[in-house]
């Protein structure tokens, strides 16, 4: 018996049933190869010596006794810094299926200890709230078979593109054609856009894979997918390549990487797809980016024009500007001008009760190319837990409100609204996206879904993994450490990008065909959707069905 005093029990002591994930290890199968301990991003596995009593019975001499054996076993650390995140990498690499993390179904005591060293809990990923989202519950119910031969999603021709950029009213368009006025440029793109994930947040292999995949979708498959860079600029070779036309360049409050971009303008072979100005992010409204020193590699430092290995928190707002109205006006105009008024420029704001105010502000700005509304379920490179879990506004009602506001002004074709935040959270990406489109969005941005689908990101709704911010992503998606990111093959990511978008396209057609739509994306086709929640139906002004 070991005296209690010799086991240190402190106020912050935890034992493994207190942790969110418990490692199950089978001694009988383990060959102690060490694969799991090597791969574990949190270094939470350790070898420990164990002693076991082996009962012995000597039948002939009728004597009982004990023997002891010592052996090496694998155990889980229980301190917060090394708590298992359930990423499952150990299970993935174990040759003998001897180890796996199991979610702990009892109350998680770790919640009380996530403030080690006085720092509030931070993580990457997005709000982890399991269960069906509102978007998951919307159904497409206006099935058109009363008077029509049904459309065949595989055989008929479908137009599944949308536009980025401001559109003039028919009257304005004709008048400007006649007197040679300026007609804003628009881009025809696939309505599922790869949302802003910055080149600082993603590993070089990940964004190379995405870029290759996007180019393949455009040039080989004919699906005009575009991707957004997020804050942090864009590698100079991409800026000077013909692939720039598939890229939406983001400028955010830190202006990181923009001197590179401005310098590259004279050498650009083509225009970027659009410019996105980030004012806010749905996953952490009112918070800036938090790129920590361990992700600021030499390459990232060069792209962003900063020293290597220093923390790069972006300020939460454009410090240089006085109000959102002024800021929207000045930034949009400046950036539109920088690109010769040939590139659509639009702002991204977090969904909020003031979204309508911003929208109406933009409607009156001839240089505004749209509005991206990012909701609470959106992803982020890093943010405080409390921001991600409890701050923000869902995107559906916000987009709907803004769309109806445009309708009332007869301008719903003119200023496109884009939606982001939690689309495909539970895997129903086409369904979620199309529901938002029918609520009034012209396109949707997807980030986390793309990471999960194309690179095998391990995050899920049970607060799993979510270490994107720490630079220890076990898949090498969000790490700047070559030892980790070389695990990710860019070619395979590109292949998955192509597969993903081919699938989304098929599913979009499968949704459009029974609704009898094939000639134009069903933006605002609110008669096609229903929900079995009376309050939600009233709020969204769609059908209540049950």
């Amino acid at each position, binding site marked *: 018996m070991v005296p209690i005093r010799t086991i240190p029990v402190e106020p912050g002591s935890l034992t493994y049933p207190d942790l969110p994930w418990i490692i199950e290890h089978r001694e009988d199968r383990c060959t102690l190869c060490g694969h799991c301990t090597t791969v574990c991003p949190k270094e939470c596995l350790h070898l420990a010596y164990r002693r076991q009593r082996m009962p012995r019975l000597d039948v002939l001499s009728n004597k009982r006794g004990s023997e002891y054996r010592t052996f090496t076993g694998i155990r889980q650390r229980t301190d917060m810094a090394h708590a298992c995140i359930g990423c499952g990498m150990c299970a993935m690499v174990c040759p003998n299926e001897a180890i796996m993390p199991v979610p702990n179904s009892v109350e998680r005591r770790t919640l009380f200890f996530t403030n080690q060293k006085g720092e509030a809990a931070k993580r990457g990923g997005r709000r982890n709230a399991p269960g069906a989202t509102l978007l998951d519950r919307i159904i497409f119910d206006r099935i058109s078979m009363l*008077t*029509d031969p049904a459309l065949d999603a595989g055989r008929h021709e479908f137009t599944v593109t949308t536009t980025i950029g401001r559109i003039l009213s028919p009257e304005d368009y004709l008048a400007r054609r006649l007197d040679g006025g300026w007609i804003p440029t628009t881009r025809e793109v696939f309505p599922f856009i790869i949302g802003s994930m910055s080149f600082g947040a993603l590993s070089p292999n990940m964004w190379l894979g995405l870029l290759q995949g996007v180019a393949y979708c455009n040039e080989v498959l004919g699906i005009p997918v575009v991707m957004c860079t997020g804050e942090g600029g864009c590698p100079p070779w991409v800026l000077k390549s013909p692939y720039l036309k598939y890229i939406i360049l983001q400028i955010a409050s830190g202006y990181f990487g923009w001197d590179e971009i401005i310098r590259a303008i004279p050498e650009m072979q083509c225009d970027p797809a659009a410019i996105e100005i980030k004012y806010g992010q749905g996953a952490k409204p009112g918070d800036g980016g938090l790129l920590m020193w361990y992700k600021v590699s030499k390459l990232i430092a060069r792209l962003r024009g900063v020293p290597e290995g220093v923390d790069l928190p972006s300020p939460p707002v454009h410090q240089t500007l006085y109000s959102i109205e002024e800021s929207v006006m000045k930034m949009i105009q400046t950036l539109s001008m920088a690109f010769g008024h040939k590139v659509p420029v639009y702002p991204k704001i977090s969904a909020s009760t003031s979204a309508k105010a911003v929208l109406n502000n933009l409607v009156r700005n001839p240089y505004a190319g749209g509005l991206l509304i990012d909701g609470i379920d959106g992803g982020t490179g890093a943010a405080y837990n409390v921001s991600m879990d409890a701050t923000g506004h869902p995107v559906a009602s916000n987009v709907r409100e803004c769309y109806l506001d445009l309708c009332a002004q007869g301008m719903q*074709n003119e200023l496109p609204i884009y939606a982001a935040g939690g689309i495909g959270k539970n895997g129903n990406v086409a369904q979620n996206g199309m529901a938002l489109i029918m609520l009034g969005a012209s396109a949707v941005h997807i980030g986390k879904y793309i990471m999960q689908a194309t690179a095998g990101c391990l995050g899920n709704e049970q607060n799993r993994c979510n270490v994107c911010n720490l630079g220890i992503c076990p898949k090498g998606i969000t790490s700047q450490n070559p030892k980790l990111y070389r695990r990710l093959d860019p070619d395979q990511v590109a292949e998955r990008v192509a597969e993903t978008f081919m699938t989304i396209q098929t599913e979009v057609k499968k949704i459009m065909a029974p609704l009898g739509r*094939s*000639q134009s994306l069903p933006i605002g086709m*609110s008669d096609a959707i229903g929900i079995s929640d009376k309050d939600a139906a009233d709020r969204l002004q769609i059908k209540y069905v049950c």
Partner: protein
Amino acid sequence: MCRLALKTAREPFSPYDVLTAMEAMQEGYDGSGLGLLLRGMEFEDFRYNPKFPILSGIAESEKAWRRLDSFMEERGYELKYDHKFHMKRAHMNGKDRYRYFVRAYRMPDRFADADQDARETELLKTRLALRRDGEEHGGDLSVFSFWPDVTMIKEVGWPLQVGNTLSLHDGQIKARVCMAQGRQNTNYGINLYACHPFFIQGIATMTNGENTAFVPIRDWLIGRNLPGYIGYQSDSEVFTHILHYTLKHLKLPLQIYKHIITPLNAAELDKHPQGDFLKGLRDACRRLIIDGPNAVIGTLPDETCLLVMDHKKLRPATVGGREGVWAIASEMCGVDAMIPDRDPALDFQPMREHTVIIPPQRKELTVWSQYEQFPLSQAA
């Protein structure tokens, strides 16, 4: 699926001709409604001056009838002719209507020097005011059209039965253009106004099929805040309004209608002589893209007739005839019934890029393709 028939001829003919064509196509509808539009009017007992606007509709009660009468008088309209249908109520199995009216008026004196625009706006506003008045009084008054040289009749029931009720075979009323549609819309409620054809300021269209892009188009049209862009009891009514918007508000040629409702795709536009203009037009009018299947048949104030298909072309429609008389119908047997003595080998079924136009001279058909250059030099 609805059945549609249109006949246009230099010599006025009885609308009963077109109802016979409806009979030929009868298995296509269920008798839930008939809409009839006549243009180029001739009355047996009245020398009609085609400048007089004709008010047509239904008064359900004597009270409504009196209200209509005094309303028109107060507004300054002088009644010139009041057509009395020889009613055979025994044929009627629906609601017994108090009166179907077709009345020609002289414009109020204050419009003596008014320009065309002001007159047209006045006619539209008067019709809308009467329609509102009917709605405020429990729907006892329906006004379908108020326009020079146009009569419109709508009723729930089988086409021939409606024709017999109103004795349309008696030669009292004749017209140079007649459009008829059997069965009203089934997607939205059964309602008199929902019977095709739809009419606004001299422009009328009718459709078979279903417009699945109805709600976004309707929302957009209503958002224009233009007089008359209201109601929308049928998903097909927007076709008429888009045509009206194209011709009257955008002042574009008829050929552009097809480019607005079913634009070519990006690759086709790259090759089009006016591709650049059309791409911009497609963006600007994106919400007006229809999603059929539909065949749209229409007439314009100058007696031009047209037929277009949606992009999927999953609906039938044929046009045939000879110099001086032409017919468009959703079924070939319909054309046969209206113009039996034509060369059927010359009948034409438009493809999705075509707009069939029968010009007012009615000499020959114009089949205009979306791939061709269209007549609009300034803007494009």
